[in-house]
């Protein structure tokens, strides 16, 4: 373009050109300005300013490098830039609560944040460099940070075996199993109970239609804050969840269920002499109550008790509450059940007691007379006689409502996968969830919480019934469900699997093990309940004669214990079989009974041991001997008849090697001290001479 032509360009156009140039230069300059003002850079400048207010400025700033700080864990496909703003996260100097966020150090945890980053546990968006995108749900970034209350869910991703450090997660997993969530949902890694709800094939012989109506309508007794009963239901904490059924549905279901009868029950014939002696004796009821208590029925069953105007239940939760059972079951059924629970319900966890006719009569009288509520069925409407039409509708309703997921009934097969698959619930995006009109934060944790507390709060048409859960239970279940991410990014070598174990025995012991349901409370080789001591090494611990006596007449070793072993009324032969089995099989490799040299247990050594016990180590702080001492450990008054000397010696050397997690502290006694204290304990015998059983 020539100069002449240039001159022709109008003044206006040159003006525009100049303006546009200036604006574009300014426009380009915005880019570095915007970068300068970015959130993470502002936090880093703030950190430098903060460091300058402290006395250790120099060390803090030497270790600080500006720029994006990124951790890459390729095996888990994790990129984590959190340390860009959380600069002091692994600096112990910045652990004090007065250090402003986001610079404060993380409290001590088992996995170093330098090695694992943050998002492996906290979730959120590791790649993001803005506060909102990293922590919350935005359009493009769906995974928010997990509330710390539920952080144990992240432990569960890799640690599928229970950890001591994650009580909330463990409790949640346990609840998912005991509440039988697996009855309707597919949940990976949760143990399935053998028989979640009772078999209903013969329920018509057990209870009346009116009781079924009551149970489906008002299962729970509800008390207001002043202690007045507002709903007089059947139990305080029913295990069965509440299905919001309409009156018509309850009518047909109760008609169907009460029609389920196999053969009629034969009533048990007590001998005429026994009836003549006991029938008109009013004391037989109170004697039945004493027997009920002596047999420790309340170790598994609870009873309602009113103390100081407050009604609560006392007792175990393995079996159902019995406060009103006398108004529920038919007496003939009750006697048959007590004599042999497995005949009615093959999978029942109730032991088969050996009853004397007298005890059976008295306990039954006590249950049917005292454990009753005369007003229980008062608000059940008059139910017309059952017709086949109702039974047919009731049967269909039984399947439609998913009753078959927990219960079996004649000709109705167990239903499987009635509810949705929950195996990857913990990784669902919010867009996949149905919140309905619930006024809750739009997060996965809040959704699971609301759904668990009241399924109809997020979906009015939910088929899921409502469980009676307290706040702690809801949080535990939410944690366990959030841990189910189905995350395929976790490499197999990082997953610590859950060990499944089952301990089944055959032979004479096996039959007793099944009859008395030892595994409901005790653990054997990693299998069984946690209510009572682990018996895996019981043969090394206890003497044979003591075992026999204990099985025949269980006494408590720990004064503060509420739950005690029931009295099964075992025969001598049964007790001997169990004791022999334990002495032969349940042995610890660390205890060698033949190694203990009884000759070393001299009176002199025992006197030294007594001195050590009472003065130097003051074991009486926790253990009781003849009524004096503490309540923490077991009563040692009868130690010489109870424990083997080899067990005592090894126990004094290292108790945790024999019973992991026991409270007894591991001390460093010298071998002379171990010998002296064992000698002393081996002198502690209760006066009564133990009768020898051959």
């Amino acid at each position, binding site marked *: 373009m020539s100069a002449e032509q240039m001159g022709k360009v*109008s003044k*206006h*156009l040159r*003006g*525009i050109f100049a*303006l*546009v140039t200036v*604006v*574009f230069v300014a*426009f380009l300059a*915005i880019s570095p*300005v*915007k970068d300068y*003002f970015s*959130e993470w850079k*502002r936090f880093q400048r703030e950190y430098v300013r*903060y460091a300058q*207010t*402290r006395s250790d400025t120099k060390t803090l700033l030497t270790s600080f490098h500006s720029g994006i700080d990124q951790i890459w864990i390729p095996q888990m496909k994790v990129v984590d830039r959190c340390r860009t703003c959380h600069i002091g996260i692994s600096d112990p100097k910045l652990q*004090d*609560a*007065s250090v*402003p966020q986001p610079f404060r150090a993380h*409290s*001590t*945890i088992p996995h170093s944040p330098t090695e694992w980053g943050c998002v492996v546990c906290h979730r959120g968006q590791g790649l993001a460099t*803005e*506060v*909102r995108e990293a*922590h*919350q749900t935005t359009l493009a970034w769906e995974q928010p940070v997990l*509330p*710390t*209350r539920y*952080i144990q869910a992240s432990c569960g991703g890799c640690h599928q075996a229970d950890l*001591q*450090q994650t*009580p*909330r997660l463990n409790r949640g997993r346990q609840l998912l199993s005991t509440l039988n969530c697996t009855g309707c949902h597919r949940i990976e890694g949760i143990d399935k109970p053998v028989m979640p709800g009772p078999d209903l094939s013969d329920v018509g012989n057990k209870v009346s239609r009116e009781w079924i109506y009551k149970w489906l309508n008002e299962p729970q007794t509800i008390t207001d804050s002043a202690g007045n009963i507002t709903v007089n239901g059947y139990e305080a904490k029913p295990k069965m969840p509440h299905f919001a059924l309409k009156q018509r549905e309850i009518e047909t279901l109760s008609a169907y269920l009460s029609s389920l009868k196999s053969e009629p029950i034969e009533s048990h014939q007590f001998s005429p002499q026994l009836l003549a002696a006991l029938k008109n004796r009013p004391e037989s009821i109170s004697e039945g109550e004493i027997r009920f208590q002596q047999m420790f029925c309340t170790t598994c069953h609870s009873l309602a008790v009113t103390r100081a105007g407050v009604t609560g239940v006392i007792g175990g939760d393995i079996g159902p509450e019995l406060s009103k059972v006398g108004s529920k079951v038919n007496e003939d059924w009750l006697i048959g059940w007590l004599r042999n629970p497995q005949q009615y319900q093959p999978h029942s966890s109730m032991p088969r007691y050996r009853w004397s006719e007298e005890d059976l009569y008295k306990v039954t009288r006590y249950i049917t007379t005292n454990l009753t509520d005369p007003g229980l069925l008062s608000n059940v409407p008059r139910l017309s006689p059952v017709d086949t039409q109702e039974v047919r509708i009731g049967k269909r309703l039984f399947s439609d409502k998913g009753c078959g997921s927990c219960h079996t009934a004649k000709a109705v097969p167990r239903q499987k996968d009635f509810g949705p698959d929950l195996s990857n619930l913990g990784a669902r995006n919010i867009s996949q969830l149905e919140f309905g009109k619930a006024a809750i934060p739009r997060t996965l944790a809040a959704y699971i919480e609301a759904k668990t507390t009241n399924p109809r709060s997020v979906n009015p048409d939910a088929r899921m019934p409502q469980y009676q859960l307290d706040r702690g239970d809801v949080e535990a279940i939410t944690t366990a469900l959030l841990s189910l991410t189905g995350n395929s990014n976790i490499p197999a070598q990082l997953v610590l699997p859950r060990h499944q174990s089952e301990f089944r025995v055959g032979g004479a012991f096996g039959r007793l093990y099944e009859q008395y349901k030892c595994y409901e409370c005790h653990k054997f080789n990693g299998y069984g309940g946690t209510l009572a001591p682990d018996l895996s090494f019981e043969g090394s611990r206890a003497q044979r004669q003591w075992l026999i006596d204990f099985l025949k007449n269980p006494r408590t070793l*720990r004064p*503060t*214990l*509420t739950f005690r072993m029931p009295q099964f009324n075992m025969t001598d032969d049964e007790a001997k079989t169990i004791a022999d089995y334990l002495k032969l099989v349940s042995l610890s490799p660390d205890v060698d009974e033949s190694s203990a040299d009884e000759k070393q247990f001299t009176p002199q050594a025992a006197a030294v041991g007594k001195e050590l016990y009472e*003065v*130097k*180590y*003051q074991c009486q*702080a*926790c253990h009781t001997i003849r009524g004096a*001492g*503490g*309540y*923490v450990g077991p009563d040692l008054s009868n130690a010489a008849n109870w424990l083997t000397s080899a067990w005592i010696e090894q126990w004094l050397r290292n108790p*945790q090697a024999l019973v992991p*997690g026991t*409270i007894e*502290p*591991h*001390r*460093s006694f010298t071998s002379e001290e171990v010998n002296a204290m064992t000698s002393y304990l081996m002198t502690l015998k209760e006066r009564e001479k133990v009768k020898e059983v051959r």
Partner: protein
Amino acid sequence: MRASPKNSPPNLRGEFHRYIALLLLALLMANLDACRRAPPSLVVDSSIVAYDIEQDPNDPQRSIPLHYEQAEGKRIFYDKCIWCHADASPAGPSNRSNLIPQPPSLSDGNVLNSLSDGFIRNIVTLGGSALGKSPMMPPWGNTLNEKEIHAVIAYVRAVAQPPYQAPGRSSSDYGVK
């Protein structure tokens, strides 16, 4: 070559300028606005950011948030210490009133706040008799590891009533600008 401005009516040329100017101004504003935007404040609820909570022993309405280490201390406390250092144990009655001298309740700040971390660590590790205190306090050094004992101290400090104040600089020295 662009169309010469001479070919366009003057009024149209004026509007053209204005459009460009407005467009650029809008872009500029939008960009500057993006720079100025303050980061959103995150909702901080102590029960949500806490790993676990503990009931305030003196005020049932208040709960004390615990971080991981303090929660670990709580777990160990409820397993090993509660029997003698609290008025109720998981089994019901407490062994505390049973002992002479009576062990302090672990949430009692009046007793424990004046003890240093080092002293508590030593008495837990070595037992009462090693420090001239009651031999009824057993040594836990072989049962609990250093981290666990540290966690117990962290828990005790968190639940102390009156609250525990770490020695050294007062918290105002760390104040944010």
